[in-house]
């Protein structure tokens, strides 16, 4: 599972790929009180449940999930063979220091605090966030929310606290949007999940500032399996943002999350991701939202880094006039494969979905778009718009598009556009002749390509996104 043995890239190229992730490329010595050890058995599951002091129903849920995980084959019939390189027997499934998440940064252990300070999290919290959860390996080290939100009845805690303290809200929706058996990795997550957020926004409460979670992997050979459930009650509104980094280890790391969103009547959930994994992370994530009558679920998803990302955020539009949207940007540099897309399931009349996907492939990087739009025959007045654009930088890059639009009945409107363009030598020469270095020129071309989508990001994140792209393009110049 080592990056070195499974890759045919030369050392220099690998160095070039990773030079850009310097911000996240550091780690501290491990000081874990709780370590589930390597490999995955019933004992691993029990260990996690014991450490967390979980109720019996969750323990059973985990054991059932473990069975499903073992029974399900790897999806290599349609996905990349690289999945076979994940060695589930060497992964460590649970690591924590046994501390409860702190409400104040002052109480967070020194090196954890230093980690998140280097990543700029406390600073962002002060500047523009309503609440922050910072997860370090398996558990949150810090979790806090502005006091006035607590008074309004907003809940923002980790998944363990959510299922224990708020079972009456948590349990009816947990595992309902994404059933355990949805795919092999949702089953894996269901068996060993730890961390992630549970959020409940009461009726009519509209959060002006976003809530943020930051997921940090610090330990080698570690698998991070956070589990997030967000419920926006009728007429509520929330924006949730997540960021992710990991240091560059010699061996591969697994990140496999499950994120479920529930937007009740008239509610609005926006989920923004800016991930910048180091290039040995297998990032296999299942994300889906349920939108009831007049509700809206938007996924704004930016994938930079990782060795392999497989992620297809979806929206099930279950109530009339529900809206679903996926806006995604993926950048695949050499040695990386971004296999991303969207799933739009129309399950009520007059539902509307929109998918805009832009992928950039650089060097030997590979981008794949998989889209699924489903509109059954008995519905009427459904609309879907799908746009996917790919930008290629140099001749070795590869891009594939697999749109699957199933529309039955004739009372619907769908539109699909796809384009592939290249950063031509003429364009680069033109920009370089004006004084921009090759890296700056490519970066500007890439930023231009995604410009209209970046506007959808909160300002603070679009600045970060631009910075990441600049670094990525600078690093890709040989």
């Amino acid at each position: 599972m080592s990056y070195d043995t499974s890759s045919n890239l030369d050392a220099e190229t690998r160095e070039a790929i990773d030079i850009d992730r310097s911000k996240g490329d550091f780690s501290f010595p491990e000081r874990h009180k709780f370590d589930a050890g390597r490999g995955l058995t019933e004992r691993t599951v029990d260990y996690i449940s014991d450490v967390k002091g979980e109720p019996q129903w969750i323990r059973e849920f985990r054991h059932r999930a473990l069975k499903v995980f073992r029974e399900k084959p790897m999806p290599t019939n349609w996905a990349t063979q690289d999945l076979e390189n994940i060695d589930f027997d060497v992964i460590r499934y649970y690591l924590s220091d046994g501390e409860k998440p702190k409400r104040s940064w002052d109480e967070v252990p020194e090196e954890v605090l230093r980690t998140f300070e280097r990543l700029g999290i406390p600073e962002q919290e002060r500047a523009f966030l309503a609440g922050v959860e910072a997860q370090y390996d398996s558990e949150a080290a810090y979790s806090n929310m502005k006091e006035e939100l607590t008074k309004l009845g907003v809940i923002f805690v980790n998944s363990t606290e959510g299922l224990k303290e708020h079972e009456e809200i948590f349990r009816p929706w947990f595992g309902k949007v994404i059933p355990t058996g949805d795919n092999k990795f949702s089953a894996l997550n269901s068996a060993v999940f730890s961390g992630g957020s549970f959020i409940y926004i009461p009726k009519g409460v509209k959060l002006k500032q976003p809530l943020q979670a930051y997921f940090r992997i610090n330990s080698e050979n570690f698998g991070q399996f956070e589990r997030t459930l967000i419920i926006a009650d009728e007429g509520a509104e929330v924006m949730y943002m997540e960021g992710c980094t990991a240091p560059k280890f010699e061996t591969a790391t697994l990140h496999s999350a499950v994120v479920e969103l529930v937007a009740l009547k008239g509610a609005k959930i926006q989920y923004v991701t800016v991930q910048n994994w180091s290039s040995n992370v297998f990032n296999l994530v299942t994300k889906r939202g349920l939108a009831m009558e007049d509700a809206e679920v938007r996924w704004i998803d930016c994938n930079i880094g990782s060795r392999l990302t497989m992620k297809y955020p979806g929206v099930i539009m279950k109530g009339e006039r529900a809206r679903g949207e996926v806006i995604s940007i993926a950048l695949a540099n050499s040695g990386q494969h971004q296999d991303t897309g969207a799933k739009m399931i129309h399950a009520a009349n007059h539902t509307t979905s929109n998918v805009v996907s832009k992928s950039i492939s650089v060097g030997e990087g590979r981008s794949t778009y998989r889209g699924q739009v489903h509109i059954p025959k008995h519905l009427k007045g459904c609309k879907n718009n799908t746009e996917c654009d790919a930008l290629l930088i140099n001749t070795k890059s590869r891009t594939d598009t697999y749109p699957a639009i199933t529309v039955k009945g004739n009372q619907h409107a769908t539109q699909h556009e796809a384009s592939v363009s290249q950063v031509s030598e003429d364009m680069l020469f033109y920009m370089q002749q004006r004084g921009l270095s090759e890296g700056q020129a490519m970066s500007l071309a890439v930023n231009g390509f995604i410009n209209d989508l970046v506007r959808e990001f909160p300002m603070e994140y679009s600045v970060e996104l631009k910075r990441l792209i600049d670094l990525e393009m600078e690093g890709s110049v040989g």
Partner: protein
Amino acid sequence: MSLLINDLHASLEDGTEILKGVTLEIPAGEVHAIMGPNGSGKSTLSKVISGHEGYVVTSGSVTMDGQDLLAMSIDERSRAGIFLAFQYPAEVPGVSNANFIRAALQSRLPKGEEIDAVAYYKNLYAKMDHLEMDRKFTARSVNEGFSGGEKKRNEILQMMMLEPRYSILDETDSGLDIDALKIVAKGVNAMRSPERGMLLITHYQRLLDYIAPDYVHVMAAGRIVRSGGPELALELEKNGYDFLKETELVPA
């Protein structure tokens, strides 16, 4: 102080030689024009000077005020003071004109120093007014959907903003109607200065009615075959390039 091209030979990657010994000196403060028929190597010369990677310099030298340009990358040459107004400017989708020019200016500043946005826009608007360009051009993507004339005006705008030491204008007059040509010439003339050298590449005398060159050169088959004053352009206009048939093997 001059842009000095000495016995320059350059080939395509497949080995076809395009420049076959070009020698030309453009001192600061002078405007030179190169005329010549299609395929004579005029555009190639402009690309080789600016460092286009599609050509291989096999011998000769290009220096700017004593600096060896051939040892520099494309962007280093630009920042050192070489500007090329393109015959066919590239489009850069999604990047606004204002941001593009700003990035070009930013690349000339030392690391850590930022452009003053207010002063930048003031300067940009003044130059645009000079070229009678609508303010809307700042927000439009670089050259995307521009007419031929708008693209050329945009090239001159960039030149005025970057204030190069030596400018090469490659067929800036092609595709321009007479009004646009006058505006472009106004911009170029405003840039004439004792510190700046210019090289105009053109097919036609027409441009030279508005931008008076100090010297005119005729290029044919990869060489400068005749040089003279402004009157040479008039002579070419009248008699065409027929004389080349007799003289092309005898460099001036």
